[in-house]
């Protein structure tokens, strides 16, 4: 029996996209989508189209920049690069995530009374 696939938690796609760009450097939308799917080991349901809507938002906020270039297969593709503001935002969001997930973990953990 395979493990059920989970939808991406609302609001975390931006975080994952920023993290991917930090790790891989400049990357196109398809590459970002594939990377998230791979990291999630196919346990995450990624609607690839929503990656592009997420990228529109990130460009508007100037956390990433976009530029047309050529892919590894020689195809024309739009490459996204993390900006300085994006890096700062990523740091802030990661810290926030750690804090929240820590709290949730503590809440879910059964009490180990003395």
């Amino acid at each position, binding site marked *: 029996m395979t493990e059920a696939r989970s939808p991406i938690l609302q609001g975390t796609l931006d975080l994952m996209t920023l993290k991917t760009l930090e790790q891989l450097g400049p990357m*196109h*939308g*398809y590459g970002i*989508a*594939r990377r998230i799917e791979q990291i999630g080991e196919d346990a995450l349901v990624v*609607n*690839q*189209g*929503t990656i*592009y*809507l997420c990228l*529109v*938002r990130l*460009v*508007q*906020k*100037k956390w990433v920049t976009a530029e047309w270039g050529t*892919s590894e*297969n020689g*195809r*024309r*593709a*739009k490459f996204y690069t993390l900006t300085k503001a994006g890096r700062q935002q990523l740091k802030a969001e990661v810290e926030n995530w750690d804090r929240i997930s820590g709290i949730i973990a503590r809440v879910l953990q059964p009490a180990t009374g003395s």
Partner: protein
Amino acid sequence: MLTLLRVAVARLRAYLRPGDQSRDFEDELEAHLAMAEEDKIRQGLPPAEARRMARVELGGVSQLVEAGREARGLPWLDSFWLDVKLSLRMLRKSWGLTLVGGLAMTIAIVIGATVFHFLNLAFGGTLPLDEGDRVVALQIWDTKEHRRHNTSMEDLERWRASLRSVETIGAFRTVERNLVLGEGSVPLAAVGGPVEPVPVAEMTASGFQLARVPALLGRSLEAADERVGAAPVVVIGHDVWQSRLSGDPAVVGKTIRLGETIHTVVGVMPEGFAFPINHRFWTPLRADPSTPLLTTEKALVFARLAPGVTLQGAQVELTAVGLPPIAGALEAETQLVAQVEPYIVALTSDGDRGQVVWLIRLMRLMVILLLIPPCANIAILVYARTVTRQEELAARYALGASRGRLVSQLFVEMLVLAIGSAAVALGVLQLALNWAESGLSEAADGGAPFWMDFSLTLKTVLFAGGLAVFAAMAASLVPAIKATGRQMQIGLHALGSRTGKQLGATWTTLVVFQVAVSLAALPLAVEIGWGTIRKGVLGPGFAAEKYLTARLAMDFEGKDGAAEAENRRRFASLQAELVRQLEAEPGFLGTTFADLPGDEPWDTIEIEGVTTERVGIFSPASLLRINRVDDAFFDVFEIPLLSGRHFEAGDFQLKAGDAGRAVVVVNRTLVQQLLGDRNPLGRRVRYAAAEHDPAAAGRATSPWYEIVGVVEDVPAHADRGTMYQPMARGLVHPAHLAMRLGPKPSTMVDRLRLIASRLDPTLRLDEISALDEVYREQAVGNNVGASSLAAVVLSVLLLSAAGLYALTSFTVNQRRREIGIRSALGATSGRLLASIFKRTLGQFAVGALGGMLVAALIDVYLPAEVVGGWSIPGIIPAATALMVLVGILAATGPARRGLRVDPNTELREG
């Protein structure tokens, strides 16, 4: 915040250049699909399957393109424009609603924006001076009497010495002086040129420092000019220099005469400078310790807040320093407090600042509430029309439009109408402002204060915009929410049938109520309108063009009690001498000192032994005009004596102790209203309130006066009883006089002023104008008032008609099948109409009957005369007939549609 701004800029850019980014986005999705397809082919999938899988994983391309467009641009703006376009189309289609609703909204917004703007004009704004918002007034406020207490020069000196939170303390008072130009060195008796009374600011030199405006030519006033014995100097305004001294570049050093004194011109102020209020002449306020009090009117102590000090800080210091000893001694009794007020507030409000602020808030709230009645009416019409569009709305709902989307579309429709109305209203307001400005600039006292800007302000435009949004919400939200609610489902069912909807009991009640209110208010509104314009239409009823009227005054300022009595004696003898000299002039046929007919103050009297019958809650005895006149009044105005006698010389010489011998003359209307058939001669009357009678000083009741004569009414002013009292000359200052002259009285103005100023250089004749001109000017104001009233009445009538139209339309729609069946069964047009409208007519009759009853009650309890109207016999039946006519006209269209119903169609579709 920065991120939000970035997003807004990016979205705006994308909105302005939608094509480029859409193509870019589509290209990017194409590239994605190609890469995904390649990957899948590499993984061994057949090309067709690879392409399919790639598309499935990406999601619907067209939906993504649309979502991308929404994420990039300003989607709500797109839908807003769409709604605006649709609204314009709908407003054009329902032109009746547009006209009626637009007119009603425009009138309400005109009233609201006008009140708002004039309140700001009067009480708001800052001085257009360097740091004008830091200029303040210092005053001693009498909290018991609610008025500014007199301030002495000693108070001023004390404040100057002790206060640190304010600086550049000074004062001014306005005096009137006769101006004689170019005649400075000529003896007054030889003056032949024009004499003109002008307002002059007697001001400390610090006033110019406070204003921080240097002189254009020469210098402004200096502290040395204030010393007793210093040479009299004057600083003049730019427009005086240009218009009366021909812009003479060598004006400094020349002399002009102001009243008794010849002044040397030491400077000319730049254009537009009119500090402290609207002044063009400035002379020094003498620092003489015996200089009298700065009287409460037209005088003020001003200062500038020291750097870093707030108004509250200055108030704390002034309170701590306390009142000057003289005022302090009176403090307990009269409750005096020293106050620091913003300069404009101190000059424009007679009440406490807190009260003014509340008053302004209250009036703003009232003008906003004023929008509710017309908007409620428009809401009825919008709802009525929305119900006819039920099928369209239901279809849009079924196709996926959200309820919010439908509501917002109806709101935008009303918003478009309201914004159009607001634009028209602002245009009307601008015309009114131009009119007010030109009227004020021609006024004798120097025009509007220099800080008043008569152009439309951004604040007023925003307020009108706010009113428009409020009006749109009030007119659309309730009907929109109601029409898109429960009935949406019915609308869907109705798609397949032709069953009409009912207007609903609430709305029907509102229409009936509207009819009742319109009819109730109509008679009084017409009577007020007629009362207002009547004098203008009929004229004064005598040859007003033969009269010249003026105000006579002399320098009275600040004399103590004994000197005041001497001044009054002198004023009386000057009046007598003026009359003697005038009557010796060719063309002068008579002069009288009195108020003009129609301009007299009102008061209440009682007649000994007679109980005045009340009309409703008011008594005619409370609507009397009281005119104190001299012995020439009846002759000069050619008012015939009906019985008894005119005043005699002895009547004018009574002293306070002669009570019982005092007499009055009354007019015909007074006798008719208060005495009927009884003989008025020999009866005694007195003021109902002793404090209104100058002769009753200090007594609990007014003395009795015997009626000795009855005179004819002045035709245009026959609406009220008038009581004439004898008035000895010199008693009232300033005095109003009227002169009967030969042809072209206005040519005598200069001669008149010259005669007066030769008698005494301080004797001033101002506000001189032909009497017909005075009445004409009054008529202009009255006509504006009556036109505004007519516009309101018209809009109320139109709203009623529109409401009735909606009601009858619905009745016809609702009963189409029934009409079809009856028609098929052979009912005649008459019977058909009677059956269709039986119920509607009944509702209308209820409204009309209610309105008639209320109108009759108003007629009894609030006679038109009380509110400035003129009773018109039979006005209530006439108004009812008009309302019935309006009702019939409103019902005609729907009735004709009802008769045109085709029985075959209705029976087939039913």
